[in-house]
């Protein structure tokens, strides 16, 4: 069956996804795919994600593994002959998917969400409580299980002075920071929602 081309999804991406308009410049050379360390784990290489957007395949793009697997190594951005910040586009698509509720808050989406919450709450990251919070997101029982699994590593870190004992405190300017972040959310592409 022949799939139909539908330009409306491309427009949605250009208008609402951070760095989304940059994909217009893609000439499908595939150097991003050749440079990606997790390409073999992806269902579509980045260049094909861009083709799918052009063709209007919203579901295939938003449900793809590819947009969730960026390690942020920047190699694609460095090498793209058209200067497309591929990494920023992939992050933008993932963010958009999470925001729209298409990508479930599991795994990286959940971890990143907690990460951001912690920044919003205290301005910094507390390395010892973050994984804990993330594990508990999976539910109490599996969370405890994951925590126990990770415990030997934590103990090692602790024994080698690499764990901050005191809980991280809020930065002094947290109120202003939050005001700024609220404003940034509002002013960002596609608005706060």
């Amino acid at each position: 069956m022949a799939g139909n081309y539908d330009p409306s999804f491309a427009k949605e991406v250009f208008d609402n996804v951070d760095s989304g308009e940059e994909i217009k410049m893609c000439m499908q050379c595939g150097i991003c795919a050749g440079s990606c360390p997790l390409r073999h784990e992806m269902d579509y290489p980045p260049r094909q994600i861009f083709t799918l957007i052009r063709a209007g395949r919203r579901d295939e793009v938003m449900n793809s593994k590819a947009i969730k697997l960026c390690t942020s190594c920047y190699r694609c951005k460095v090498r793209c002959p058209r200067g497309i910040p591929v990494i920023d586009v992939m992050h933008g698509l993932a963010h958009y998917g999470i925001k729209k509720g298409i990508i479930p808050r599991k795994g990286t989406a959940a971890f990143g969400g907690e990460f951001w919450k912690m920044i919003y709450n205290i301005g910094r990251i507390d390395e010892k409580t973050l994984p804990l919070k993330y594990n508990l997101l999976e539910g109490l029982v599996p969370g405890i299980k994951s925590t126990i699994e990770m415990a030997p590593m934590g103990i090692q870190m602790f024994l080698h002075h690499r764990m901050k004992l005191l809980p991280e405190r809020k930065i002094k300017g947290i109120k202003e920071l939050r005001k700024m972040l609220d404003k940034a959310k509002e002013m960002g592409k596609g608005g706060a929602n």
Partner: protein
Amino acid sequence: MKYFLYGGCSLEAGGKNYMVSLEPVCKALGMEFEEIEDWNCCGASISYAGANELSIMTLNARNIAIAESTGGYDIVAPCSSCYIQLVKTNHELKEDAELRNKINVILKEGNLNFKGSLNVRHLMDVLYNDGGIDKIKSTAVRPLKGLKVAGYVGCQTVRPYGEYDSVERPKVHDLLLKAIGADPVPFPKKMQCCGSGIFLTELDRCLGLVKEILDDAIANGAQLISTVCPMCALNLEMYQDKVNAKFGTNFNMPVVYLTQLMAVAFGMDLKKEAALDYCVIPPEGIIKAAIGG
């Protein structure tokens, strides 16, 4: 030379050995650091799951703006993840006036303003270009003769703008290792990503990346791996057990920070300043053999 030091969250915890060792090493090279007051997290590479581009940029613009309001020195970021966030924000805001205006509207909420008067630099850049190979050589009173080191660069250390080293064939890490008498081995995977921020959440997919890096270091005869990024150090060191379990391998490769090796070469205390005891996989034996202790 005076700098702002942006240590970031990791250098107070998981990357503590980096912080402990870099301070005396930089001091020995005549560098002086001032912390950016009340700094906040850079957002790392994973914040996109919770925030938009502009919000993450705001975090970094705030740090730079605070630095700008208190002094005129370069900002040094030892953590590659912090470095890339700061340098990217600084670069894009300097280039793009429209974006700069937007950010300044946001920063106004905290009475801050981004002017674009400072440079953001990686610690490795500062060691190489400001410290200098000659000075490091002359300070290295206890050279690490013949120590075979795989100088791991990782991804974010030199990308994306290639400010101080080639983004495809970096050489600064190896030159610094040579300056302290060590013997950097050929290491084709020195630029392969370790999995970075999604390591924890995509463990199964990323362990293979770490395995490839360790394999390459060992195949080229390295005795230990040197890094300049707490994320790389953590992923390469702490997950060797899990790699062994998954692939049936037998890795037990020490991973240290470049500054730890430099502290040793500079004749400093192996514990107090080089923080070798912070390493989970002990590097002391190999290092002591090299310095003839």
